[in-house]
């Protein structure tokens, strides 16, 4: 993960920091900061609370807690203004303070990532707009890693596919537009999926809007010299992948403990107590109960960086190796002959200690995870999942699912299984679906009537239209289904989604991330980036790595070419659009630059609706294969997992009131 020339994610991070500090310093004196929970977490990625204090923040409150006090004259709110709820909360708290507080407060509101008309209207109607200063923190893409940019919208998945609220698509387009403004146009936009197409159209539209805005230049922006293309993948085209249990180290941690913004809260009985008192920025009153410990999971932890994208099956062995090496390193002073050797050892000691600390954490985690993965329930679920993914007759799995329900396995797991079946086999038979609905409601409560309705609305759970069309493995290109759903039965064969022999130690294909299933979303990316080697692979002849090199020199200018029939079996629109600058300007640049061949170009990938850690791992695997030819920059609306999808959909209320 070398830094990207051109699009430097560190710069983006620095800019956000600068912007934030600039805004805070713009308000004279000490201030209380009231921040929306999700934003607090996002900002916590790169700003520690102590740093905020250096910029005049006295206390931190969460907007959701509604507990800001009047200890400071300056009160600063930081929230998202896209939906009405947050501005209403801000307005109410300002009114409350104005009424109850003995001192006259100076209020400021910082909207992220933009100031909306709606927020203005709400503040105006509550009569507080005149009393406060309104600022904007353009918080679009947040770098999670050097190769991952996320908009960090927690609700983007359910917003887009359940509520059909296009906010995150629009803001995603604005964020990409931002990239285009500073790095030049994406020379080609390739994508799949209806919402992806919408995003592409928005990008084109924003470009023409920018042309109307901009009066200084005679020429519009030029295609970028170091960005090869933008690939937009709509989550909707491959709902099955996130429903499967992630089997990379990082993915499995996410499944078991949940990773939020590069950190996870884990029971300290598993990972041991925190070493120092270094607390990340955290609002008052949210200090976790003593049992939990927040651990950072990012590339600053070198050990984790090695482990995160490997299949969990080999983590155990890797940790062993590291432990042995560390042990011999630590004991090396015994062999040290001269003082200079000893000195060298001493200088390395802090590094060893950090490594030891991190080793302890990961061994603890791995032990706990091994316990979990060896449990009968986990293995049963995995078996059902893999059978469904393999294309085994789904009805043969129903007994297992019913049993899991009867054994009170957590609802998200069951829902993932059912939705997976619905996705890969084009729906459930009506009788089966009704039967399962009743079983679910009886087992988990009737409030989930609403949960199921939501899943059906999203198309994740549906009645199979007509068994014979979709079940025909040769249904390719029959065109009758008109891309309304992804035909996994066909794609499984054509794109070789199922790979039987997986070498987890030295993987030769992305399918290692799910121990034998290659995520469709990433296969589609391969359709663009690695046409030849993918063709060779799907035909079963393993492409030798040398041929691979020549083959993938074919660049993205061919778009989807060669995979049209596969594409027609994937849900949603397919597009490949070339963006050109004005002819005169292009010519001029070509003359100045000559051919820009041989340079390493960046491919920007936008995963609309979210991406899982396993898919990121698979993309990094691709990036390693492409090293020296191109770089991949992963953008997304947010990191998701099967659990987070279900969590967003599940009805939280039950009938226990009263």
């Amino acid at each position, binding site marked *: 993960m070398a830094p990207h020339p051109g699009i430097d994610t560190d710069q983006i991070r620095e800019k956000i920091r600068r912007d934030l500090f600039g805004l805070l310093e713009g308000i004279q004196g000490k201030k209380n900061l009231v921040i929306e929970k999700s934003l607090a977490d996002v900002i916590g990625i790169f700003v520690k609370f102590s740093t905020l204090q250096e910029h005049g923040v006295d206390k931190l409150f969460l907007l959701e807690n509604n507990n800001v006090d009047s200890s400071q004259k300056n009160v600063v709110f930081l929230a998202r203004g896209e939906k009405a709820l947050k501005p209403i909360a801000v307005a109410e708290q300002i009114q409350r303070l104005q009424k109850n507080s003995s001192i006259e407060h100076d209020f400021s509101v910082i909207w992220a990532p933009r100031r909306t008309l*709606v927020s203005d209207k709400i503040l105006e109607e509550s009569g507080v707009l005149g009393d406060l200063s309104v600022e904007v923190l353009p918080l679009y893409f947040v770098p999670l890693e050097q190769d991952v940019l996320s908009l960090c919208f927690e609700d983007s998945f359910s917003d887009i596919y359940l*509520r059909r609220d296009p906010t995150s698509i629009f803001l995603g387009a604005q964020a990409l537009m931002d990239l285009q403004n500073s790095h030049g146009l994406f020379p080609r936009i390739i994508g799949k999926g209806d919402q992806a197409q919408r995003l592409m159209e928005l990008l084109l539209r924003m470009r023409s809007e920018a042309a*109307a805005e901009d009066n200084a230049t005679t020429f519009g922006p030029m295609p970028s010299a170091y960005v090869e293309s933008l690939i937009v993948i709509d989550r909707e085209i491959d709902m099955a992948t996130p429903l499967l249990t992630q089997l990379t180290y990082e993915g499995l941690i996410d499944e078991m403990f949940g990773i939020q913004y590069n950190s996870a809260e884990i029971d300290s009985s598993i990972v041991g107590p925190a070493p120092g008192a270094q607390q990340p920025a955290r609002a008052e009153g949210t200090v976790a109960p003593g049992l939990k410990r927040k651990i950072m999971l990012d590339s600053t932890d070198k050990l984790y960086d090695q482990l995160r994208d490997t299949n969990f099956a080999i983590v155990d062995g890797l940790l062993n190796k590291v432990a042995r090496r560390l042990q011999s390193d630590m004991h090396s002073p015994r062999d040290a002959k001269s003082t200079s050797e000893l000195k060298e050892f001493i200088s390395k000691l802090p590094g060893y200690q950090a490594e030891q600390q991190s080793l302890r954490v990961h061994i603890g985690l791995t032990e706990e995870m091994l316990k979990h993965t060896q449990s009968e329930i986990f293995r049963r679920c995995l078996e059902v999942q893999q059978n469904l993914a393999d294309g085994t007759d789904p009805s043969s799995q129903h007994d297992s699912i019913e049993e899991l329900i009867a054994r009170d396995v957590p609802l998200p797991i069951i829902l993932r299984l059912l939705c997976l079946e619905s996705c890969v086999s084009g729906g459930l038979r009506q009788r089966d679906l009704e039967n399962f609905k009743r079983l679910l*409601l009886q087992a988990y409560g009737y409030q989930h*009537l609403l949960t199921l309705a939501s899943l059906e609305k999203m198309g994740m759970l549906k009645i199979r239209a007509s068994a014979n069309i979709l079940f025909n493995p040769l249904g390719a290109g029959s065109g009758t289904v008109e891309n309304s759903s992804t035909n996994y039965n066909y794609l499984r064969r054509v794109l070789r989604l199922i790979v039987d022999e997986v070498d987890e130690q030295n993987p030769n294909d992305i399918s290692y991330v799910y121990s034998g299933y290659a995520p469709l979303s990433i296969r589609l990316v391969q359709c663009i980036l690695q046409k030849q080697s993918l063709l060779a692979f799907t035909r079963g002849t393993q492409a030798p790595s040398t041929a691979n090199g020549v083959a993938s020199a074919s660049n993205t200018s061919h778009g989807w070419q060669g995979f049209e029939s596969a594409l027609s079996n994937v849900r949603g629109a397919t597009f490949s659009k070339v963006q050109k600058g004005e002819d005169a300007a292009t010519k001029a640049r070509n003359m100045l630059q000559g051919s820009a061949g041989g340079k390493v170009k960046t491919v920007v990938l936008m995963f609309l609706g979210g991406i899982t850690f396993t898919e990121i791992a698979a993309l990094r695997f691709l990036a390693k294969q492409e090293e020296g030819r191109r770089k991949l920059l992963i953008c997304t609306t947010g990191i998701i997992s099967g659990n987070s999808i279900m969590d967003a959909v599940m009805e939280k*209320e039950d009938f226990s009131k009263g």
Partner: protein
Amino acid sequence: MSGPTADWEKAGDSFYRKIKFYEAILDPELELEYHVIAGAVYGGALALYRDQERIQTYRSTPSFKSSIDVYSCAGRLIRRINWDKGNIRGLGWSDDEKLLVVTEDGTVRCYYDLHGDFTQFSLGNGAEEHGVVACRFWSHGLVALLSNNRLIAVSNYLEPRPRLLALPPSDMVHSWAIIPPAYTLSRSVEVLLAVGETLYVIDSTEAEDRVLPNGPFQHISVSPNGLYIALYAEGGKVWMIMSDFQSKIGEYESKTKTVPKDVQWCGNDSVVLAWEDEIHMIGPNGAFLRYYYDAWVHLIPDIDGVRLITNDVCEFLQKVPDATVEVHKYGSTSPASVLLDAVQQLESESPKADEDIQLIRPKLPDAVAICVEAAGQEYHSRWQKQLLKAASFGKSILDVYSSDDFVGVCETLRILNAVRDYRIGLPLTYEQYTRLTPVQLIRRLINRSEYLLAIRLSEFLRLPTNNIYVHWAARKARHSSADQESVCRSIVARLSSKRGISFEMIARAAYDEGHGDLATALLHHEARAGKQVPLLMSMSEDELALDKAIASGDPDLVFIVLLNLKKQIPLASFFRMLSNRPMAMALVETSARDQDTSLLKDLYYQDDRRLDGSRLLFSEALAQSAPQTKVDKLKLASKLLADSTKDSAALLTSRLIQETQSLIKVQSSLDNDRPASSQTKFTGLSLNQTVYQLVLGSQIKRANKLAADFHLPPKVSEWIRLRALVVARNWDELEDIARRNKKSPIGWEPYFNEILGAGKIKLAGGTFVAKCTNLTVSERSEMWIKCGMFSRAGDELVKAKDLEGLEKLKKRAGPEGAGEIERMMAGLRLKR
């Protein structure tokens, strides 16, 4: 053509020149003496109006309607503004050519283009009662003097905030002037009032008497750079002092008893006194010049000289710039002058040219520079050319020369000559052009509707042209008499390929003029939805605004239009508008779910979305606390679906809602029955959990009844019972079940696993392994092994005659069990 020094005159050590800009500028019938005239700086437009209060010669024809006429310096009428708003007390210009008209009652009109569009504000602060007497203007502000001597300052016209200055003395004001804020120490405007014999300086906080002895002063004038003040005292004396009142720099006796009608600075080193047809110019050190006219003459001060306006001519009086003097002064032997001579010699093919060059060789770079500079100052193209030719000749001899200045002056001269043309009438000097800046010059051209020239100049200067196009189109949209459709078409055809075109501004112009349809048509071409939508909303084109907002993809815009619409139109038509716009519908549904569920109910009702409606009621039921209200809500929810008998989804939902009701009823009666000591509350649990809790509480009969009532599948209830019994550690019951039943719906293996998992090895092994008859031998033996019952496992294998299995078993059994396994193996071998 006359020589370059023909219009020069010498005063003291300096030369002054009077350049004739234009001739025959105004109608000879126009009686200039009865007009008030104001001119914008940088060669800007002139505004004239007939002063009604002055005694006038009788005219047989009644004087026509009063108006303010705006002329270019060449006398072209740009605009006639009809005036019926009362007496004008102040007429002036801002630097960016806004015309300001102040009336007696304190109303200020700011005509921001030259076409009669204006903004208006009132001075307030007592201006209405006392009346404005006079006004003075500076680059972007004005000061008004009221009849009670109060002063009101306005420092900008975009957001005018008139404020009172400090209280001045109440005696009669003989004359007054202002020092613009840019030149004062306080950075706010200062007013000089000649009251009594002395002079007061008034700013926002205080009025200070400067105690000058020589008053009363009839005229006060401040130099363009704000450093000097000229005072005209009764008796014909003129004093020139520093504006800090520290020193006197000049004094002049005009020897004329008549008080001049105007006193103005000409540049920063001389003062011009104007009588009706006579001009005195006082240079430094008491030198002076006199000019006589045969008609009434007006002074228009500019930054580097004074424009003189009569009916006949527009002239410019200025000090001759140093470079020009050096080149052209008669008998000059300066290098630049010699260079100019050399080029003339060259033209006449005389060898003297070379001599000249040799003469000035060491100073040639300076000579070239001076020639270039002088060329810029020249007004006649012939001398411009001559000087540039000289410079060009000189630089061709030089080894090293940077042509930047030369090229710059050439370009500037092209521009200056173009705008000085009488058809444009902008007689800019080089210095004025630099101060004005090219961008402002383009704006002046736009305001004069000189679009072609503006575009050419912009392209020449590499400046953006989009504003010119927008301005052109806005003018066309406003004033074109052609039918609106063709206007729109022609505008779009002209602008479609240009960048940075704001169709919104054009549309706004059309809308302001009442061409609503044209505005709408134009707005279609606006690319930025953020601009389209607000205008469409203000035009009440609600539906169109909604569509444009949706097309923009910006939910915020859609939302704001929807909020607006919801207030304005009946709910039914609001919903109708949503029905074929999925994005708007989605946004309304999402926000209503958070804030206004009754709206959502109405929406679902009107759209006949019963399933959604009943789900909404269902979620309301979740929020209720009393069991009865929960049930009531649920009843409503299922009633909504009662008619949809054909829809299988509705049927199922309705059945499930009914089940929900019965469960709630059962649970509330369970809760009523339960002993007070019990912690478990049933309400809120799922059916399975309820059964589980009942088993856990040993109410097995009740559990079974509940399971049967709700048609719980046997497998499920079996599992629930098993799990609950294991957790309750009710081993007797489990053993009993094993004894009573031959078969179990879920087989016996789960029993084995669960009980083993709970650590009850004896029970698991002793009772349940044997019951798993459907499993293979090896599986069963594995189960025995898990219980540590190796001999039983061995028996199992012996039965299957699995010698290999026994071998393996031996290893796992460890030293204690190994002997027995060995025996078994021996027995098996024997049997063979």
